[in-house]
Structures are given as structure tokens and as C-alpha cells.
């Protein structure tokens, strides 16, 4: 995809105070580019859920944003621990979130299904001990 912008956002494990900053920035950039508010909301919701997962569940990782003429590509990559059973993790209501995450209003087990619902293409790959990669594409129209 020929890209207007490419951005990378490192996301630290357990950093609840800063969680969401990357997604807020992503939303701001899409707005500057004139992306429609409907598409912007879909990307923002998926981005916020995937960013929170990096904070809550991963050992750390990054978010990557590409915006081109044919759409928005959002990729999340982390360095572990990986997801043992992806089919289980994709189920609504399944969550291994900590008490801390729950006290903030998260850990309902809706994140992954919600990402899948908002993205036009959704791909998740995970290897135990290596990490998880989630790739989401959003059409601009």
C-alpha cells in the first residue's frame, strides 16, 4: 500500500496511566487526514482495545499505523508471552485480565471480538514464548 503516513508507537507493559495515548494520537492523525468520522471511530475503538491488550496482557510491544489511498492498516506486535489458544481468546467473555485492569473498567473479554467486528480484515497470529501479531485493515469508504 502506498502510504501517506507511517507511525510507530512503543507500548509498555503495565503502564496503565499512558495506555490509550497512542490511540488518541492515531485518532488525531486520521482526523487531520480527513478520514470520515465513521471509519475514524472504528479504527479508534480497535486501536484502543489492542493498545490496552499490549498494556494488560503482553510483555511490551508496539503499534504501527499506515494510512494510504486504499485504507488504514493497524498492526500490533509484542514480544510475548503469546496466546495459548486463539479460538478461546477470540470468544466473547473470555479474559485473563488482572484485578487492576478490571477495576479500570476493562477485562470483559470483548476486546478481540470487538476488533474483529470493527476491522474489514482481521488477522491474528501468536506463538508461545515469541509473541502475538494482530493486523487490521480498514477500508476508507
Amino acid at each position, binding site marked *: 500500500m502506498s502510504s501517506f503516513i507511517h507511525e510507530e508507537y512503543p507500548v509498555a507493559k503495565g503502564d496503565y496511566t499512558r495506555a490509550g495515548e497512542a490511540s488518541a494520537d492515531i485518532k488525531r492523525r486520521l482526523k487531520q487526514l480527513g478520514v470520515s468520522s465513521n471509519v475514524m471511530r472504528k479504527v479508534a475503538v480497535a486501536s484502543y482495545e489492542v493498545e490496552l491488550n499490549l498494556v494488560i496482557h503482553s510483555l511490551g510491544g508496539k503499534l504501527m499505523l499506515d494510512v494510504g489511498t486504499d485504507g488504514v492498516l493497524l498492526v500490533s506486535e509484542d514480544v510475548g508471552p503469546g496466546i495459548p489458544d486463539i479460538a478461546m481468546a477470540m470468544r466473547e467473555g473470555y479474559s485473563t485480565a488482572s484485578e487492576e485492569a478490571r477495576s479500570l473498567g*476493562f477485562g470483559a473479554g470483548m476486546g478481540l471480538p470487538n476488533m474483529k467486528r470493527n476491522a474489514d480484515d482481521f488477522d491474528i497470529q501468536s506463538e508461545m514464548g515469541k509473541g502475538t501479531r494482530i493486523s487490521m485493515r480498514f477500508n476508507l469508504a
Partner: protein
Amino acid sequence: MTFRDMATVLHAKVLCHEEKLDNPARTACCSDLMSDVLAFVNEKTVLITGLTNPHVMRTADMLDLKCLVFARGKIPTDDILETADEQGLIVMTTKETAFTTCGLLYEAGLRGVPIEWPEGEDA
């Protein structure tokens, strides 16, 4: 009804963006589960909640919500209110519980935000 009518019905104190109170309010939702709000809320609506952490503001930002109502007299910290101010979000706080807040607003004509069921699922 307007946001001002909401504030009146709830005897609420407006903490942010008082100048927007005459805009119309039509729908609302009530939840402390931000994942749930992110999953089902599909329009620029009102959120009634008892949570006052920064993620409530972030959730509101991601969804372009118009107004936050904190129930049971809760007031977020100043830095959280500053974020709301930057986001252009109306914020009010009422002494009523979340249940009574919803009841009073429903009685006054506000309705639940229409929700989308995930494909292939029945109520």
C-alpha cells in the same frame, strides 16, 4: 430535551463545557464496563457511569461521546477534567445513584442508545 434539561432533572453540577448545555440530548447509555461501551455504543451519545478514571475520558474520546454524567456525587480529579475540557466533552455530576439517574432521565424523555447485536447472535 437538552443537556440543560438533564442537569435540571438530576440537580447536577456541570463541571465542563457549560456553554454547550443548550444542545439537544436524545439518547444515553449507562455502564461501568468500558469494554462494553466500546463494543456496543455506535453513536455520539451520553454515558452515565460511576467510574472516574482517565480511561472513561479516553473511551469518550475514542467514541466521540458528547456528555459524561458521574453518578453518586463522584467528581474526577482536575487533570481528568482538563482532558475533558480539551476534548470538548460536557461533564456533570449528580448525587443520584446510577439507577435513579437513568430513571429520572428516561422519565424526562431520554432513551437508550440503539445497540447493534453482533452478527449471528440473538438476544
